[in-house]
Structures are given as C-alpha cells and as structure tokens.
C-alpha cells in the first residue's frame, strides 16, 4: 500500500502523519524533538507507521464478528502493552549506558561509587514498568525521556537519602546517558515488539478462545506493505530535515492546509506551538492569503507555559485544568519569560491563589495571540485553533472569550488532533506531489465544534 508522509519538526515535538492514496489518515506519530533531527524525524515516522499498523489491525479485527465486540478493549490493551515493550527496550539501552558510565566514574576514581545504586535503580524501574502502563494508570507524558526521567529521579532521590549518596551525581549519570540513547534508534524491530505485546495481551485472557482468528488478522495486517511514496517536511527545524529542498514546505502553508482539510470552512487559523505563534488567513481552497508570526520575543508561546509549569513544579498538562478552577482571574500585564518566575513568586507571596494567577497567565498569552490575529487581518468565520496549546482548556476558554469580545460570534474549531495540523498539511502536500491537482477530502475523527 502506498502511503504519503508529512513530518512536522517542531521545537519541542516532532509529529508525523501518514495518508493513504485516497487521503485517509492511516496513522499519526509524535516524539520529543532532540538534538539529532534525523532521529526525531525517524522516530516520529516509525510511530506513525506503528499507529497505522494498529489501525489496519483494528479494521482486520472488525471483519471478524466474534472479535468485533471486544475489538476496542483489546486494541487499547495491545497498544499499552506495545508501548510497554518499547519502553522496556529503551530502558534496557539506557540502563546499559548508565551502568557503563557509572563504572567509568568509579575507574576514574570518583569519590562516590555509583554502580550499585544505578543498577538498583534500573532493576526497580524494570520491575515497576508494567504498572506504569497498566490499564487505568495515568501516563505523565508520551515520551520515554520524560517517563524514564521522572522515575529515575524519584528512585535516585530515595536511594540517595537512604544510602547517603550524592543525588546530583546520580542525576548526572542519567543526564549524560539519555541524549545518546534517544539519538540512536533502537535495534528491536516492530515485529519483535509486537509479538511480545501480543503475548502479554493474550495472557490477560480478554480474548481467550479466539487466538487463531487473532493470529489470522495479525498476519494479514503484517502482510500489508506500507510503502512511503512521498514525504514532505515542515516545521521550525525543517531546514535541517533530511529532505530535498523541493520536499520542504513552510509550516504556515502546512498549518493552513491542515486546518482547511480538517475543517473546510476555516478562514482563520491560530496555531500556538512551542516556539512560535502563527495567525494565518486562508481562502476557500486552503491557500494562505496572509499570515503573521510572533516577533522575536517568546512571550505568549507554548514555551512560556512550559516555563511557568517548571516554576510551579507542575506538569505542562496540569496547568490548564488548574486554571479552570479559577473563580477570579488575576490581571497579568507582562508575559515576559525573563520576569515570569519573579512575578509568580511575588504574586504567590502576596496571597494570590495559584489557579487565579494561572488563569490570568492564560488570558495574557491569548491577548498576545489576539494581537497577532489582528495584525494578520482579524478573525473570520470559521476560526480554527491548532497546535499543542489548543489542548489546554484554559487557553481555549480565554480565547473563546476574547474572540467573542472582539469579533462577536465565530464558529471555533478545535480538533483533538490539532497538534498534528502541520504534519497533516505536509502529508497532503506529499500526496499532491504524487497526484497533482488532487483535492484531498479527509475522513478523520472530525473534532469538536462550538458555535
């Protein structure tokens, strides 16, 4: 089966979308961006192809009446187990590296002797891994770096206190090891990890007695060859993507097209990513007619929220829900990243509530976005909000209020897949490259609409 890939290399995450020849989304993948752009790109693509396989597998399972009713539960479990297998493989690499490094430190006569501690940490991490991915467990992040990092830190902290070891030195071992590990692609194949995941899932008993049908569906899925016909790259780091120049599109064009494909009546797009904010106007064909990007100042971008989360010792995903608890928004005038920390502490110490400050911060960021929208030509109907920040409910609430105040009624589109808009646009460009003039109609999971 021929497929068409779009890759969006952003400052914090790299996204990939795979389309089939009819423009249907086969799969999506995401990973954290890292110093090696090629690897980030390959990992995102592999994730998207994995997702595509699972989706295909889902179709195959749907064909069997007996399996169909348990399909969703089974697939969800299988996906979790697959992720667990991926995690374990990477954890193995990381463990090896960390131990190696610890041994070298001892050989070089470090004051502390970290080998035993590091070994112990990884033993524990292996043991608890299954719990991390167990049904119902809430994953703090989708990325290995974050998951492993937070567990390592917690265990190292415990050990350091218990055994009176140097915590910073233990963390140093991790910090030095994670970068090479995430910059190399693991040796295990999709097939191997899938087999392991299937075994693990079957042991659960959810589909006992249907093993042969499962195996049949699985082999049919694996028999489908996914051949990448064309891929197009975009995003902040696109110039460094391993693509020829003619296969690179600006993220402005891709976001405009991606939003158009998802919500065909879109005329204005706001995308807030990690590094920049874009306000884009598109015509009825999804062609960009004007755009504005934030100026050099990073205030008002996703990165600013990340900074705030760090200051408050919260996960990025926790900011929005906490701000939603606010009853009384605090007015915040400065969104200067440099002063954010000091201002936060100042306000907290003056007795302002955390959720109220957070709500104010979200409003302040959205005010900057409104200015950018005004620069680009305003907010037309319909209006699509995309990018990582579109997942944040407090950001969405602030935006909706401000749009209403300044422009009146507007249909605001937000897709759960909005982080993939740039990659989707790029994938459509890839498909058009192959079949010029093709108008792509998308059958995605749609998205929510508010009027």
């Amino acid at each position, binding site marked *: 089966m021929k497929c068409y890939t779009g890759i969006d290399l952003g400052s914090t995450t790299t996204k990939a979308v795979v389309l089939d020849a009819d423009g249907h989304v086969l799969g999506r993948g995401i990973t954290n961006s890292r110093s090696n752009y090629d690897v980030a790109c390959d990992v995102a693509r592999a994730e998207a192809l994995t997702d595509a396989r699972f989706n295909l597998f889902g179709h195959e399972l749907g064909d069997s009446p007996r399996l169909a009713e348990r399909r969703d539960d089974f697939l969800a479990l299988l996906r979790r187990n697959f992720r667990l297998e991926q995690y374990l493989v990477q954890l193995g690499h990381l463990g090896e590296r960390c131990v190696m490094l610890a041994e070298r430190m001892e050989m070089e006569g470090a004051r502390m002797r970290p080998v035993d501690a590091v070994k112990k940490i990884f033993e524990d991490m292996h043991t608890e891994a299954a719990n991390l991915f167990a049904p119902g467990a809430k994953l703090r992040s989708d990325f290995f770096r974050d998951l492993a990092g937070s567990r390592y830190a917690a265990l190292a902290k415990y050990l350091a206190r218990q055994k009176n070891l140097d915590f910073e030195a233990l963390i140093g071992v991790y910090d030095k090891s994670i970068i090479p590990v995430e910059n190399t692609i693991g040796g295990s194949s999709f097939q191997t990890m899938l087999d392991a995941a299937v075994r693990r899932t079957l042991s659960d008993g959810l589909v006992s007695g249907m093993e042969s049908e499962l195996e049949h569906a699985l082999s049919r899925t694996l028999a489908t060859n996914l051949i990448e016909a064309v891929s197009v790259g975009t995003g902040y780091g696109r110039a460094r993507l391993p693509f020829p120049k003619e296969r690179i599109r600006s993220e402005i064009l891709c976001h405009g097209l991606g939003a158009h494909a998802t919500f065909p009546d879109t005329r204005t797009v706001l995308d807030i990513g990690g590094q920049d904010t874009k306000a884009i106007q598109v015509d009825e064909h999804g062609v960009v007619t004007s755009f504005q990007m934030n*100026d050099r100042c990073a205030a008002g971008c996703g990165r600013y929220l990340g900074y705030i989360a760090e200051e408050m010792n919260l996960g990025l995903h926790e900011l929005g829900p906490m701000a939603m608890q606010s009853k009384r928004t605090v007015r*915040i*005038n400065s969104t200067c990243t440099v*002063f954010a920390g000091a201002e936060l502490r*100042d306000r907290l110490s003056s007795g302002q509530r955390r959720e109220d400050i957070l709500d104010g911060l979200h409003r302040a960021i959205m*005010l900057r976005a*409104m*200015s950018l929208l*005004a620069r680009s030509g305003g907010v037309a109907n319909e209006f699509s909000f995309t990018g990582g920040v579109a997942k944040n409910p407090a950001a969405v609430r602030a935006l909706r209020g401000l749009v209403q105040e300044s422009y009146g009624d507007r249909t605001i589109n937000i897709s759960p897949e909005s982080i993939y808009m740039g990659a989707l646009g790029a994938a459509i460009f890839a498909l058009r490259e192959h079949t010029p003039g093709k108008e792509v109609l998308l059958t995605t999971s749609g998205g929510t609409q508010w009027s």
Partner: protein
Amino acid sequence: MESRLTPPTAIGALTARCEELIADLDLGNVRAWRAAHPGRVVIGYLPIYAPRELVHAAGGLAVGIVGAGEELEIVRGDACFQSYICHLPRSVIELGLSGKLDSLDGMIFPSTCDVIRNLSGIWSLSFPKKWVRYLDLPQNFDASMGGVFYRGMLEGMLRELCELSGVDPKQADLRGAIRAFNANRRALRELYALRATEPWLTPTSEVYVLVRAGLLLPVEEHTAMIERYLGLAKAREARPVDNARVALRGAFCEQPPIELVKTLERAGCYVVDDDFLPMLRWPERDVDESGDPLDALVAAWLDTPLEAPSRYTRCNAEKGQVLIDTVRSTRAEGVIFAAPSFCDPALLDRPLLLGALDRAKIVHTSFKYAENTGQMQPIREQAGTFADSIKLWGEA
C-alpha cells in the same frame, strides 16, 4: 471652615475624585462636558507640551492623553506596534480604536519623539474624519527664525480650530485663556513649592493625582481644586519623618502606575520635585497677558528654560542645569531617574544628565518602568536602598 474640622476626609474625597477621573478611561467627565456645552470642541493633546490656550480661546476643552495605565487590556495596540516600542502609543491606539476617545473632535501630537510624531500619521490613517495636528515645536530659539515659524504654526492651528468650532476668538478671548492657564500654573507652582518645603504635608501620591486631574478638567475647575487642596494640606498636622529627599526625572511622557509613586514613598523617599506631565506646568512662568497673545505664547516657548530630552540644549553647560538648580533649590539629596522602557529621548539623555549630576556631586539611581508595570518589588528594594544610603551619607 469645614476643611479645618476634617482635613483628612476632605483631602481623601478630593484625591478620590481625582483617582476616579484618571481611572475612567471612557472619559465620562469629558462626555458630560460635551453634553453640557453643545457645539463646542474637545481636543486631545499628547505629551509633552501643547498650547492649550488656543483650544480654550476657541471655546473648547483641551484633554491630555497620556496612555491608559495598567487597567486596559491591549490587543489592537499591540497589533500596531512592535515589542521594542514603548507602551504609551499602544494604549492610546487601543483607547482610540475601542471608541473610548470618541468624545474628542481632534488631536494634537507634539514633536516629542519619533513615536508620537508617527502616531500622528497612524491617527490620520485610522481616523480619517478627525482633525489631526502635528505640532512641530521649534528647536531654533531665535525669535526671527524659530519664533516666526512657530507663530505661523500657531496661527494655522488657531484658524483650523476656529473652523472646527465655529468660534472666532477675539484677542480678548486669547488673553482670557492665557490668564486662566497662568492662574492654573501659578497654583501648580505653589503646590510644587509647598511640597518642596514640607513634603510631609503633600505626599506625591496625592500631588500627582491632583495635578494629573488637570488633563481632564476645565482649567478653572482644576485651579480651584488645587487651591482647595493647598488650603487643606497646609492645615494638616503632619510631622516630618526621616525620609530621603529626592527629585524624580524621566517620566515626562509615558506615566508610571500610581502604585509606583506610592512605592517610592513607602520605600522612604520624599519626592520633592518631578518632571511628570510638563504639558500642565510649562512654561514655569506667567505668559504675558498684555501684548499680542500669539507672540506671548511663542515667547513663552522660546525664552523659558524648559528642560526635557525632547528639547535641544544649545551647549554642554546647559545640559542638566535646570535639574541641578532644582535639586539645590528644593534641597533634594539625590535624583531618581525613572524612564519608560524603550523611551528613546529619556534613555539617550540619561548618560548626559547623570554625567552632569556626577560633576555636581549629586547622587542618583536609575530604573525603567512601563505604564502597566505590575511588579513593584524590585523598585521598592532599589528605592529603599537608595534612600537608606542617602541617609547614611547624610549622617556621615
């Protein structure tokens, strides 16, 4: 008499009224004035100086526009200005585009800096139906050159104001206007003099809002208000505390939040002089009330030693001289240089002024602000340290 009985309450009511006027970004009192004076014109003017006498003589009300402080959320303003431009034009545009300045028939943009100059063009493009005048104040102070040019400009402005208002003022009207503003400036000079001698009677947080109300009130009403305050303040039974006496410079255009003024006082400073709102206090002398009124206004600009970064100083010795004289006459012990971020005139002038202060052995400290600065902690610390160090040196 009533004031003698309850001075704190009376002063409180007075300053509360001023704070209310300042906080009302919809210019409620200006709208009320318009409603009460149908057919008359209301003209806005920006820092740092405009001959308001002309508007007054044409039967109109001149309203000073100095930004919007910290309460206004800026959306359209930021759409017009890059991040490295000061805050004032953003809030002025925001006010204009959100209809809050609809009660103004026109605007005067003086030659304060490139930003305010260009704002005059933005205004013409954004409000093509409104009267807009760029006031190119002469930097040549010779009566036969700068004077002639300036007089021509005033004549043109007056002519246009007359067309706008349908009023044709006589010389007597112009003289009357000069008299009214002379009286107002005299009252303000008296207020500043009182604060310089007895700052504990006249905290700058009060003085500031009282003066600033002059941007919005008819001049006669404002004069009466200042005079009333002077009476009340003099009757106060306050005692001096061990504060450092400082002069404040740099805030002639974009205004700091009122909280900043309060912060300075809380940090142990008596502000005995400042350069807030020169548009209300210039020229710091009486304009001639007897001769040709336009010539009198021209002479007031050319011949008064007004010091602001927007005005050319003819020689090195002139730079900072007014400040140093003021420091001496008000017995200030140091200078706080507080300038708006990205204010080119103030910040380019700063090294020159500070150099002049150094040579005169006057201590100083500097920081920047914006009209919507929310963080007072660093300013409190810096001003507090400065005040403490002045007191230490003073004792040594």
